[in-house]
């Protein structure tokens, strides 16, 4: 059994807000456990305020107050060396960043410096990791771009001269130039048009295959997950509610929330009526007791309000946290 590239164990990350005498604790990530294997794309699905963005930030060790990791661990395994990002010192984190762990964000402009040429961004991020002289480094970068079907001429362009889709591709090239083992992608195609999105997703697929890296792909768009990811995890209100291989998750979802999400996807060629879900997403500062989905769940029972359903492995690689699927064990 190979060691997973990322192992997240019982992670809790809360926002502790105290402004002008008002104290609030937003439980953005509450007891999340999962792992990502080598050479795999793991999709993280969920709607707004489900905690996936906070989870990503925590994994990337980019937490700033008022966000604080309250419990649990995040351990990477880079080429046989275990790195606990929470406990690592600043030097280790800086050495790891970009060389072993990189990210692709939603707004490419948040990565590319708008007032410098694209080449500058590559130098800023990757030069120190590659460790060669500038001329050699630029050759490596140009090769990398060519392999990704991008012309090396983009290096001399400014970000605003490129289209949104092109900028995102440059961001992907930037994130992969050091051949990292783990890439975090946070809604990289959400703001792009459908046709452009297709191209960018294909590029991500190609890059992942070539480098053999692992990817966490975060998006609320289930159709993207269906088409790209190997495994999928669904989050609701700060907790992971279901996880499994993409095909089974879509063919036979177990958790009522996943089932609803899959069933309510409109498809071309299909005019069957679809229903919306009752209720509203919960307030993470004051979440419902027990299973956080119970106020909106068609299968909710007494026990769902009282206890938090544990994540149970119902088949190899398939986990779900729901009392309707795995009834609570009776006291002996």
């Amino acid at each position, binding site marked *: 059994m190979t060691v997973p590239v990322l192992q997240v164990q019982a992670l809790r990350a809360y926002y502790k807000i105290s402004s002008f005498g008002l104290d609030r604790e937003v439980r953005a990530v509450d007891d999340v456990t999962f792992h990502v294997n080598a050479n795999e794309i793991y999709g993280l699905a969920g709607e707004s305020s489900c905690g996936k963005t906070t989870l990503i930030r925590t994994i990337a060790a980019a937490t700033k107050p008022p966000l604080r990791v309250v419990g649990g661990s995040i351990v990477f395994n880079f080429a046989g060396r275990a790195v606990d990002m929470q406990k690592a010192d600043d030097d280790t984190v800086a050495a790891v960043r970009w060389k072993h762990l990189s990210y692709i964000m939603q707004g490419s402009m948040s990565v590319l410096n708008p007032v410098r040429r694209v080449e500058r961004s590559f130098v800023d991020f990757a030069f120190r990791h590659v460790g060669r002289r500038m001329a050699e480094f630029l050759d490596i970068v140009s090769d990398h771009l060519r392999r990704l079907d991008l012309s090396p001429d983009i290096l001399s362009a400014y970000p605003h001269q490129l289209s949104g889709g092109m900028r995102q591709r440059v961001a992907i090239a930037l994130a992969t130039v050091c051949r990292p083992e783990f890439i975090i992608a946070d809604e990289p195609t959400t703001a792009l048009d459908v046709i452009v999105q297709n191209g960018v997703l294909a590029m991500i697929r190609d890059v992942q295959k070539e480098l053999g890296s692992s990817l966490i792909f975060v998006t609320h*768009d289930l*159709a993207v997950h269906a*088409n790209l990811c*190997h495994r999928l995890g669904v989050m609701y209100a700060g907790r992971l509610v279901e996880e499994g291989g993409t095909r089974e998750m*879509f063919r036979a979802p177990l958790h009522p929330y996943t089932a609803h999400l899959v069933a*309510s996807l409109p498809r*071309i060629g299909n005019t069957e009526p679809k229903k919306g879900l009752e209720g509203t997403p919960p307030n993470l500062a004051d979440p419902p007791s027990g299973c956080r989905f119970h106020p909106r769940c068609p299968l909710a029972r007494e026990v769902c309000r009282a206890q938090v359903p544990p994540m149970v492995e119902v088949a190899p690689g398939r986990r779900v946290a729901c009392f309707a699927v795995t009834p609570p064990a009776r006291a002996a």
Partner: protein
Amino acid sequence: MPPLLEVADAHRVYSLGSIFSRHRLRAVDGVSFTMEADKPEIFTIVGESGSGKTTLARMILNMVRPSSGAIRFRGQDLSQIRGGQARLAFMKQVQPIFQNPFEAFNPLKKVDRYLFMTARHIAGLTATTEIEAATDEALRNVGLSLGEIRGRYPHELSGGQLQRIAIARSLISKPALIVADEPVSMVDASLRMSIVNLLRRLRDGMGVSIIYITHDLATAYYISDRIIIMNKGRVVESGAARAVLDNPQHPYSIRLKQAVLSPEAAGSAGTLLAESAAAAGQ
């Protein structure tokens, strides 16, 4: 009876750039279509960013003047609408729904205020009882009620609720036409279908015609009667919605449909995605 809405060869050109290099952007480049008054329908405009669909919507709402061509509502050219009274009369019949439910209302103000304002100024009601009754009725049409919404601020409500309140607000004056610009793209997936279904109910139950603007072909397939596909300001294909989407003819429409990701491909791990460079056509 004059048609409800007649868009006759509408153009909108923007002149950009500096003194030395002016560059004309043809946001809307000759669009024409007609909607009949006695046949409520959901008319969908599909396009990606830069296709001109939002500019077209703003022209129909009389927020932007066409550079050439005409837009007529119930036979009256929109450019003839001058003066406060005429504008109010127009807004009584044509109302918008915007994309971002969180931006649709002033974060510092209560949401019920806009409903009351609409009832007072656009629907012309005066007595408080009348205003509250009209507001409550509109809210019930969207699955909410005045009791739930009264006194609440935007940040206390979810995107789905806010969008529904925005729809309720547009319904208060019992308009004949609602222009919805990407009404569900910023709403959570679990709440999206209830709003899409609501739009259908408005057409069937209240006889309201809806112009539904979107980039999402799947929801367009689900509720549209007719559809036009726009690219770079021009209409490339139009017709009955299901017919066009089942069998697109124009190369752009075909590419658009191919690019739509289907959940049926689950587990394909990217094999169904087109070749990266070719599909993007960069």
